[in-house]
């Protein structure tokens, strides 16, 4: 009986599939026609996009500062002044790679701040035309993102590349993260463990982020506090309970099943690392980085900066530790100012109208 079973199954399958076999040419023809329809639809969509873009670009002034090119509608927006401030910063950060902006004009729609009219839709970046030069220059620098040229960098960073070197406040934020992040890797990094810094920043290949970033207690806390609802809804209720009861294996299993695990150090930390690499490697660092697309982010950045990965990590850590934020927010003159107010209010008491003879 058991010898006959496979043969019987094959016979059943062939019998069922026989009518379909005859339909294969027809199905293929239908699939081909769908492909043609899709290609046609895509052409129409591209044409529509192109026409929309052309309409948006029409009648705009072109403002250039270095390789930065802006297409902007006529308005009092001080774009030329701001662009002339932004370009040196952008060029200092990206070096020769900044010339890529010549092929990527920015479309800007200066918007009247005093109108209630709807802003026309489109790809243009909307900016109020009464924006002052300094904040506008900062915005232009923040817009100058060459991250899309390197998908690996963009994925690792998790945000735009902001070409700035003045991220003192950013380093201070990272300092607080290093100290307070509920992560074993971050704490070890703070204590000068460079391998832990590499893990915390995801500079090397992350084979098992759940164990590389977090200790057992942190894994349990992550599952219970961050992911429990999601995991229960996705059918992991029993494993979640086991993790809650202290099974680290269950916690690990759950965290490994997640596609995106919360990293201990966020975008800001990675951006400061990139900044350190560019500062160490000089103006051509970014160009060299784009020219070597193979390898982990850490090795690529170190090679582009022309130092070892350990040296780069050490330099970044020193920068972060040097930016420790001021703990007690009492300005230097704050004590004198407070004493001054005590005297002022005390004098007001002396001048009381209570005993004044009217």
């Amino acid at each position, binding site marked *: 009986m058991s010898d006959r079973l496979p043969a019987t199954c094959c016979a059943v399958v062939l019998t069922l599939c026989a009518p379909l076999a005859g339909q294969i040419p027809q199905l293929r023809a239908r699939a081909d026609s769908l492909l043609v329809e899709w290609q046609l639809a895509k052409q129409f969509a591209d044409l529509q996009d192109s026409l929309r873009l052309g309409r948006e670009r029409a009648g705009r002034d072109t403002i250039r500062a270095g390789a930065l090119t802006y297409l902007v509608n006529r308005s009092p927006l001080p774009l030329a002044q701001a662009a002339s401030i932004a370009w040196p910063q952008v060029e200092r950060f990206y070096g020769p790679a900044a010339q890529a902006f010549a092929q990527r004009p920015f479309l800007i729609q200066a918007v009247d701040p005093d109108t209630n009219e709807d802003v026309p839709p489109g790809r243009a970046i909307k900016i109020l035309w009464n924006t002052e030069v300094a904040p506008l220059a900062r915005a232009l620098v923040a817009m100058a993102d060459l991250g899309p040229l390197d998908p690996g960098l963009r994925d690792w960073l998790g945000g735009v590349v902001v070409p700035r070197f003045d991220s003192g406040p950013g380093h201070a934020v990272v300092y607080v993260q290093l*100290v*307070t992040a509920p992560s074993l890797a971050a704490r070890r990094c703070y204590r000068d463990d460079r391998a832990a810094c590499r893990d915390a920043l995801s500079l090397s290949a992350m084979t098992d982020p759940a164990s590389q970033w977090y200790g057992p207690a942190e894994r349990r806390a992550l599952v219970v506090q961050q992911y429990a609802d999601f995991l229960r809804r996705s059918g992991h209720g029993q494993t979640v309970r086991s993790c809650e009861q202290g099974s680290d294996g269950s916690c690990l299993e759950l965290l490994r099943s997640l596609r995106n695990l919360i990293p201990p150090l966020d975008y800001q930390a990675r951006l400061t690392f990139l900044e350190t690499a560019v500062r160490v490697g000089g103006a051509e660092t970014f160009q060299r980085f784009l020219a070597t697309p193979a390898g982990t982010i850490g090795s690529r950045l170190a090679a582009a900066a022309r130092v070892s990965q350990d040296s780069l990590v050490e330099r970044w850590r020193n920068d972060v530790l040097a930016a*420790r934020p001021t703990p*007690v*927010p009492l300005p230097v003159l704050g004590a004198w100012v407070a004493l001054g*107010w005590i005297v002022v*209010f*005390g004098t007001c*008491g002396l001048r*009381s109208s209570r005993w004044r003879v009217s």
Partner: protein
Amino acid sequence: MFRVVLYGQWKWSRIVVILGTVAGFALPILSVQGASSDPTSAMKAGELLSVIQSWGVLYPVLAAAIGLLVAIATWAPDHRGRHVLALSLPLPRWRYVLLRFAAGLVLLVPTMLGVLAGAVLASATATLPPGLETYPVALAVRFALALGVAYAVFFAISAGTTRTAGIILGIIGAVIVVQVVASAAGIELDLTNPVQAVVMNWPGPLAIFTGRWMLIDV
């Protein structure tokens, strides 16, 4: 003369001073209860800072409350006695008020020392995660200044007449009413935010009360 005035004020405000000192001493110690020396129950750095920040709200509240109560206690007997004692003394008015003010400030010292002692003790007993530090002296100095400012403000108000207090409250009320009417009429007029910025930001009189009050920080 000062000793007599001080003794009188001590009698009137001793309960406030004693309770304030106890509260000031206990507050820092209670705030670090999570920073246990037992590593299995000790809080992580982030959680600990969050708890410390929550307790930190109580320092300016305590400073304002003690300043208010001591200032009221300073003037209450004079107001009740219709200032007969003050008028019968062979002293110029400004000197009498100065004595009252100085005596009140002296009575704030135990509370200031209570906070300093509590903060030092809490810092010595807490086991901190790496990267965190204690700031007992900075916190105590800030508390002392806030207490002094609160006392001076309420002393000045309390020294005035009901009419003066009415005028001050009237001005504050007028600002709020104008703001509400302007908002209702669709007029772009922002009075409260500039006034708030002047009062609450450095070098405003109440700036000492704002910001984070952290015994433990990075």
